[in-house]
């Protein structure tokens, strides 16, 4: 019993370590990519590390109350939890995380956990920009949630399972088995929803109120901010892993390192796609993005679902 | 105009509906089964020559009692309606006083009419006539006096007292019939008397007299109320 718990703790640590570093590097890389597109040199790849360390090292700090204090904790817990409920590498014990606790539904709803906590923390800060950003973000979230959930439903219906592991298992045996190819409409709907989920252009209105003062929600600073930045990396990673699992066959190889490589490659491409779209399009207003998500992506999702129904 | 046409149409339709009633209404040679009884046994039952009176006062006595009540209620209603209603001073001035001729004529006629009225209701069981007719004649006598201005008004107290007592006595006689004879309003608790006599036919003449008094006083009171526009000043 004890050993199994300890092993699990060790595995969890490894998994955490991998995703943290990978995600931070990915963020840095993508920032550079974006800069290149815009004709700038950009920050160094390790800039996210510097930010986090610097923020955590700051000695001054104020708090507006308990919720404010707990907000970033909630946020990071949400990111970590989301990640831990997803099996990262198919067939690997180390990277199976806590996926036995629940299926894709759990993951979908656990995403809200951090967002809610964050929103509450930011809300207590008393700064009006925070709720403005939250209102926009939540509004947009419900919108992209619809095509995304339709895509998930289509996939679950396709394989008769909500279990991520089983979905990945069903996609093994070559790229032609990936959902992206067996159920392209679901993949399209999901990937369009993913644009909104990652809050890049053109769906970045959510963070607009924060841009004037500073990074993530407005009043957060020092170690709070550091925690949020950590989460941003992990949460990003978690989402990309989820999409990889759902639509692109997951990462599976007997050799754990090759499997990791596959994972890195796939998620990198997924993220690259987001950045690619982001640099190509201007920003939507909230109501525009809502209408967008409820338009073509939802239609695609509907087609995918109806396909399954027929 | 449209309304008029609608009226005519509906009247015609109503007439058409009721027309079958007229068909087959030939001359009758027989009276109804009910009447047969009255005609054959009525005289023996009650010892009253006037069979109509027998029917009115006894066989259908409840109707008559009701009838009295109707008149009573109407009188009460009318008096309530005129109660507290004052004639305009101007209007009063406009009314001309009665002529001398009318006044003298009324004074002359009143006793005759009054006695005639009494005659009619006391002989109701013998000849055509009865309480209502007699009462109306008496009331017309009172009307004559009122119109001619010989008396300013009929005493309210008197009429109401008379009316009440007559009415109550009527009910009492009915109850006497119930307890002394065979049923409510049965006149046979008084002796049958001799055929065609004024004190015959049991309580029928008493009842008719009471009705006469009641109707006479009631109608007088109503007329009084209408003329003076205010029964009780």
């Amino acid at each position, binding site marked *: 019993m004890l050993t199994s718990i300890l092993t699990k703790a060790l595995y969890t640590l490894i998994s955490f370590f991998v995703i943290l570093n990978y995600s931070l590097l990915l963020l840095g890389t993508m920032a550079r990519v974006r800069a290149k597109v815009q004709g700038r040199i950009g920050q160094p790849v390790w800039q996210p590390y510097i930010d986090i360390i610097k923020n955590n090292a700051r000695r001054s700090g104020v708090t507006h109350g308990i919720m404010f204090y707990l907000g970033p904790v909630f946020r990071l817990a949400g990111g970590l939890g989301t990640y831990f409920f997803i099996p990262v590498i198919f067939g690997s014990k180390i990277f199976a995380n806590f996926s036995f606790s629940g299926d894709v539904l759990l993951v979908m709803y656990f995403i809200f956990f951090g967002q809610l906590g964050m929103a509450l923390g930011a809300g207590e800060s008393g700064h009006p920009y925070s709720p403005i950003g939250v209102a926009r973000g939540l509004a947009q979230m419900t919108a992209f949630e619809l095509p995304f959930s339709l895509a998930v439903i289509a996939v679950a219906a396709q394989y008769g399972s909500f279990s991520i592991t089983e979905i990945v298992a069903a996609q093994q045996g070559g790229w032609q088995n990936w959902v992206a190819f067996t159920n392209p409409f679901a993949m399209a709907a999901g990937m369009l929803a993913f644009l909104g989920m990652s809050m890049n252009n053109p769906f970045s209105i959510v963070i607009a109120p924060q841009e004037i003062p500073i990074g993530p929600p407005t009043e957060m600073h020092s170690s709070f901010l550091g925690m949020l930045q950590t989460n941003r990396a992990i949460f990003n990673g978690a989402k990309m892993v989820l999409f990889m699992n759902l639509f692109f066959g997951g990462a599976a190889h007997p050799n754990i390192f090759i499997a990791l490589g596959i994972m890195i490659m796939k998620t990198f491409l997924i993220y690259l796609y987001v950045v690619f779209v982001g640099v190509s399009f201007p920003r939507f207003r909230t109501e525009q993005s809502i209408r967008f998500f409820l338009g073509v992506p939802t239609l695609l999702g509907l087609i995918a679902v109806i396909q399954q129904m027929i | 105009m449209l309304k008029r046409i609608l009226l005519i149409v509906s009247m015609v339709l109503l007439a058409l509906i009721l027309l079958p009633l007229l068909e087959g209404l030939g001359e009758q040679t027989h*009276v109804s089964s009910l009447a047969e009884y009255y005609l054959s046994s009525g005289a023996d039952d009650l010892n009253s020559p006037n069979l109509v009176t027998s029917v009115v006062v006894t066989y259908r006595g409840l109707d008559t009692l009701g009838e009295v009540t109707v008149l009573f209620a109407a009188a009460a209603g009318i008096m309530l309606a005129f109660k507290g209603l004052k004639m305009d001073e101007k209007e009063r001035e406009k009314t001309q006083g009665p002529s001398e001729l009318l006044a003298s004529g009324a004074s002359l006629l009143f006793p005759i009419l009054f006695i005639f009225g009494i005659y009619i209701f006391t002989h109701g069981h013998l000849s055509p006539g009865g309480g*209502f007719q007699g009462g109306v004649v008496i009331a017309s006598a009172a009307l004559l006096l009122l119109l001619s201005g010989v008396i300013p008004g009929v005493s309210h107290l008197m009429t109401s007292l008379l009316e009440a007592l007559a009415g109550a006595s009527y009910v009492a006689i009915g109850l006497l019939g119930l307890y002394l004879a065979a049923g409510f309003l049965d006149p046979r608790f008084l002796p049958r008397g001799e055929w065609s006599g004024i004190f015959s036919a049991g309580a029928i003449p008493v009842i008719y007299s009471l009705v006469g008094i009641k109707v006479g006083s009631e109608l007088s009171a109503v007329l009084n109320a209408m003329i003076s526009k205010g029964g009780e000043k």
Partner: protein
Amino acid sequence: MTQLLYILAFVVMAIGLWGILSRRHLIRMIIGFSILDTGIHILLVAIGYRKGGTAPILDEALSKGEALMNAVDPVPSALVLTAIVIGLAVTALMLSFAVRMVQNNPTMNADEHKELKW
């Protein structure tokens, strides 16, 4: 003969009804009622009549034995008597109500006594 009486009754009733329905003057409406009542009374009397019948009052002209054969039906006569009195009472009451109505709203036109409606 009796049929004529029936027809007369109906004509009188119709006239009365027509008066109620078409005359706007309150008093004329009431007169219409009286006429209608009169028609009904004629009808009742007609119903009681038998061919060649005489009044059901036993006297020298009509002995007890003959009554069954020759007297008219006494019942409708009794009914008519009651109906007349009732008609009288209603007419009197109607007139007094009409007087009060006109006092509240000085017009005899029934069309203009429409404070209560709908």
